[in-house]
């Protein structure tokens, strides 16, 4: 049952691969033709050589003119054959690297539409491993497949014809026995497929570990955890070593095995040939010629069987990429989804239920009404669901029940891109992309002028430190922001939003890493930015919260109090408790 399933899976993978080669039909065809040309010439040259040798009979009996003519021919066909072979190589390169490029392209495109729940819950290292190492291994296998499969098949056909012209009976013996080697190859191939798959999976696991640990090397060092990590790494490494050894060794037995089968064929031909020769069915010369052809005939079978195992590896890797490509994307925008332009910012959250894991209820029956231009502050103890609300507003996650409406339209009926570009978002977790500071600032508004950019940077008080950097706005920052401080990174994120000024704002702990003086200074810019814009602010600093039009006090996924600062203080509830806690004497 399991094997059957695996078999159909392999077939499906193969089908998908073939589907990807469709775009390169012409090259496939061309490659095939060129392979035929190469093989024909390659088989023809030995005949020419034989003819030339026939002119060399003995002392004083050599036809130099004849030889010269044939040698010219040999050189001509040799050059043609070499050119054809080179062109064929080019075609094969084109096909394989093209296919891999297309597959990577597809995989990346899928990455961009996967729901966040997938990305949040899957190891990044494993996804990276699929897109990089697996895709590469697949390319190598496919290239080998194309180069050897075609020439192999054509060589077999060619020699078969030559053999038939000599003796049909022996040819029949050869034809019947040779497929045994293919059977042997496929026997091994079947067994190696899941070994290769295991190898790929272990490799994915290892990449995931490397990704996590090397990505956070600084923490690792702070805890002096290098040795423990190495130990854990070694465990996975050993696992990989074992699975690789198995996969590589068992697959490498194919070639010797098929060669052994071929030596049986050779012996078979020898016996039958010798017996027929004894009864004067063929001449000794014919037999020796036959044997050499039989040898040539079986060689491509060796190669093909080698390719078959190599392809197992390639297919196992391909299967992992396709699995990723076939992952369910986020629900696409509805066909009649509307564009949200110049949103007024009236937001209604109605009877919303949501949870990340079905068994663990988080938000239940959430209702909220925010009018255009209002400033909403969300407070509450950590883990109460503040960030979740942002996930829902931005539609990073879809609600399980109920609806969220912006300007009276359910956000499920609004295109994601227009919804998201209506929000300016600054998160506590600063993220900058690899590139110059300028590129990072212009992310939200690529066509901003230099003037606008500098103004936004000045308003967010990032200008002064940017100016002090080596190359100013053109300073290149590496993946994680390099040696910029956390606060500086946050200032850049704020400048990024200040530049594009969308109609609604989400500020999740936007100033958590910025010192209060700088914060105070950019406060006025913030205030100006929030004017007339519906804003959601998650903050611990009451200074930011106090001036809000509405404060939502959340606990355990529910809004437990709601109102203005003064009102809530008077209520003397949870908010008052939170507020007073800062006067508590330590």
């Amino acid at each position, binding site marked *: 049952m399991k094997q059957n399933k695996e078999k159909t899976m392999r077939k499906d993978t193969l089908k998908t691969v073939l589907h990807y080669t469709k775009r390169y039909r012409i090259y496939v065809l061309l490659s095939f033709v060129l392979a035929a040309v190469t093989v024909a010439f390659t088989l023809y040259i030995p005949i020419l050589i034989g003819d030339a040798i026939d002119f060399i009979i003995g002392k004083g009996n050599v036809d130099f003119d004849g030889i010269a003519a044939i040698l010219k021919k040999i050189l001509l066909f040799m050059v043609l054959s070499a050119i054809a072979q080179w062109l064929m190589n080019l075609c094969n390169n084109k096909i394989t690297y093209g296919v891999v490029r297309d597959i990577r392209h597809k995989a990346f495109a899928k990455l961009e539409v996967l729901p966040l729940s997938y990305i949040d819950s899957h190891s990044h290292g494993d996804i990276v491993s699929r897109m990089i190492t697996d895709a590469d291994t697949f390319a190598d296998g496919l290239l080998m497949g194309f180069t050897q499969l075609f020439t192999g098949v054509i060589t077999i056909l060619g020699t078969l014809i030559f053999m038939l012209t000599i003796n049909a009976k022996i040819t029949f013996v050869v034809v019947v026995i040779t497929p045994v080697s293919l059977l042997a190859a496929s026997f091994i191939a079947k067994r190696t497929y899941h070994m290769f798959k295991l190898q790929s999976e272990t490799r994915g696991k290892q990449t995931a570990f490397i990704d996590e640990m090397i990505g956070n090397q600084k923490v690792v060092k702070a805890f002096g955890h290098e040795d423990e990590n190495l130990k854990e*790494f070694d465990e996975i490494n050993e696992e990989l070593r074992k699975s690789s050894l198995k996969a590589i060794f068992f697959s490498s037995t194919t070639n010797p095995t098929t060669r052994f089968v071929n030596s049986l064929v050779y012996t078979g031909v020898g016996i039958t040939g010798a017996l027929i020769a004894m009864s004067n069915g063929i001449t000794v010369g014919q037999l020796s010629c036959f044997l050499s052809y039989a040898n040539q005939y079986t060689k491509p079978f060796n190669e093909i069987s080698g390719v078959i195992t190599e392809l197992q590896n390639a297919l196992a890797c391909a299967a992992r990429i396709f699995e990723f490509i076939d992952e369910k994307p986020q629900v696409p925008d509805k066909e009649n989804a509307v564009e949200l332009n110049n949103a007024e910012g009236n937001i209604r959250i109605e009877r919303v239920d949501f949870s990340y894991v079905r068994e663990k209820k988080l938000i239940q029956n959430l209702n909220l009404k925010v009018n255009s231009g209002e400033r909403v502050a969300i407070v509450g*103890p950590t883990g109460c669901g503040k960030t979740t609300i942002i996930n829902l507003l931005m539609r990073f996650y879809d609600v399980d029940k109920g609806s969220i409406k912006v300007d009276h339209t359910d956000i499920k009926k609004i295109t994601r891109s227009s919804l998201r570009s209506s929000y300016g978002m600054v998160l506590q977790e600063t993220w900058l992309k690899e590139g110059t500071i300028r590129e990072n600032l212009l992310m939200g508004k690529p066509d901003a002028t230099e003037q606008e950019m500098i103004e936004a940077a000045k308003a967010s008080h990032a200008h002064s430190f940017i100016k002090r950097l080596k190359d100013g706005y053109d300073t290149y920052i590496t993946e*994680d922001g390099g*040696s910029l401080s956390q606060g500086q990174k946050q200032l850049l994120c704020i400048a990024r939003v200040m530049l594009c000024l969308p109609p609604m704002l989400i500020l999740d702990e936007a100033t958590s890493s910025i010192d209060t003086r700088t914060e105070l200074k950019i406060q006025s810019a913030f205030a100006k930015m929030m004017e007339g814009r519906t804003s959601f602010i998650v903050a611990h600093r009451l200074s930011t919260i106090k001036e809000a039009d509405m404060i939502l006090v959340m606990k355990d996924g529910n809004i437990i109090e709601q109102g203005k600062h003064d009102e809530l203080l008077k209520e003397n509830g949870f908010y008052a408790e939170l507020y007073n806690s800062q006067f508590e004497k330590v």
Partner: protein
Amino acid sequence: MKSLMKYLDDYKKECILSPLFKLLEATFELFVPLVMAAIIDIGISQKDKQYVFRMCTILIVLGVVGLVCSITAQYFAAKAAVGFSAKLRHSLFEHIGHLSYSELDTLGTSTLITRMTNDVNQVQNGVNLVLRLLLRSPFVVLGAMIMAFTIDVKAALVFAVVIPVLCIVVFIIMFMSVPMYEVVQNKLDQVLTTTRQNLTGVRVIRAFNKEKDEKKTFDRRNRQLTNIRMYVGRISGMMNPVTYCIINIGIAALIYAGAFRTDAGDITQGEVVALVNYMSQILVEVIKLANLIITVTKALASAKRIEEVFDTEPSIVGKSVIKTKRQFEYAVEFNRVSLKYKNSGEEALSNISFQVKPGQTIGIIGGTGCGKSSIVNMIPRFYDATKGEVRVNGINVKHWQTDQLRDLIGMVMQKSVLFRGTIRDNLRWGKADATDEEMYRALEIAQAREFVDAKEHKLDEMIEQGGKNLSGGQRQRLAIARAIVKQPSILILDDSASALDFATDAKLRKSLSQLEDTTIFIVSQRTSSIRHADHIIVLDDGKIVMTGTHEELLENCDEYKEIHYSQVSKDEEGGVA
């Protein structure tokens, strides 16, 4: 590649046996034509069926022996190659573990990942193939050449010309393609970087609707990778046709030379045939070699990239000899310390001096980018001072054994990173053999007990990669607990309570004061977090403005006053007055 060879040391036996068995197999293969010749010459001409069958049995025996030899060879080759790469990965991982912050800042994570995975793979393939064909191919080529010389020295001179030419051409193609394969791997790095960025920055990218731009960037890099690959392919694709041409020219030359020699009566027609056959045999072997050479070329390029990582010396190396100095007055001392980061124009810190007695609590406050984190990062020696010296327990950090130094210190960073595994696993980062009791105590101090207890599996609750299934504040508290489990003598909180609400923050401060013997550094932007510190250092633009207690600073330090009143007047509405 040379420096990587040492990883094969443990597999010396395999490295010798594998090529040897391959050689044996090749030798047995050579017997086959001889046996067949015997069948034809003796068996058929004498019509001796018994003889034919006997010889055929020998053929099968030869086949079986060949099979056994070859499978043995493959096994040893695979074992050596796989073992080699496992050791290589181990050392690579270990080496990266020793690199210090400034090297990690410059190298970047993505390229380290490709080098550890993809590049090591390429080298593994190279080793595997080399072991299998190392002896066999030259053996066949040389053997054929020697046989040719035994037939006729003059005609065989063609071999003496063809084989060196062949070598030269192969080497030229190799030399041309090695640097290009390096470019291929570098492009692969870029593809990986884009992929990783889109995973880590998915929220921002989607919030800014940058999916299309990212796709464009990815496609551009993907296309560049493909193009350079095809370009290299064009060159290495010449290997086969060119060698094919050279050999066939050799054959033509042989026939021509053979014709003259035969005409002069020095050799026979049969001998010409033999010469040509030997040349063809070389062709077959060279084609096999060409495949090997491409793999080796790739392996060489990858090996170079791996060596680059090994060649990156950690700039911070701990001393192995520890100066023991029992008596010390200060837990931490900074003497005229300056720090300049690589690739940056200005000093991040200049001329910093202060002393901290054991058990004191130090607050560090100042504007964004003023160097607060830089100061605390120098205590566990993540960065080295460009000028001046940092002392911990009276000993210059450069004279400490780095492990022991860092063992003293519990560090909580701004960005709280947790690892995949249970809460227990994460806490044990601080102390491998921590008991539940110790862990719960640390959780209590870090104000994390409550939410951990609320989890279904308590300490065994799973944390996802990066702690994504926890809120920011929960992550921070766990990170604090992780540092406390360590029972450090110096605890550094680098603005690590920023995601905590006020109530929790206040409780945290209170409970931290229980740690009496611990020297605590608190980096913060809130004066409320540090007002009870024994000393507060006010920083501005990499320089110390003033140090003192909260009250002293409030009286004398304008900057501090400004910071403080900016917070209280806003937060407390004159509550202080």
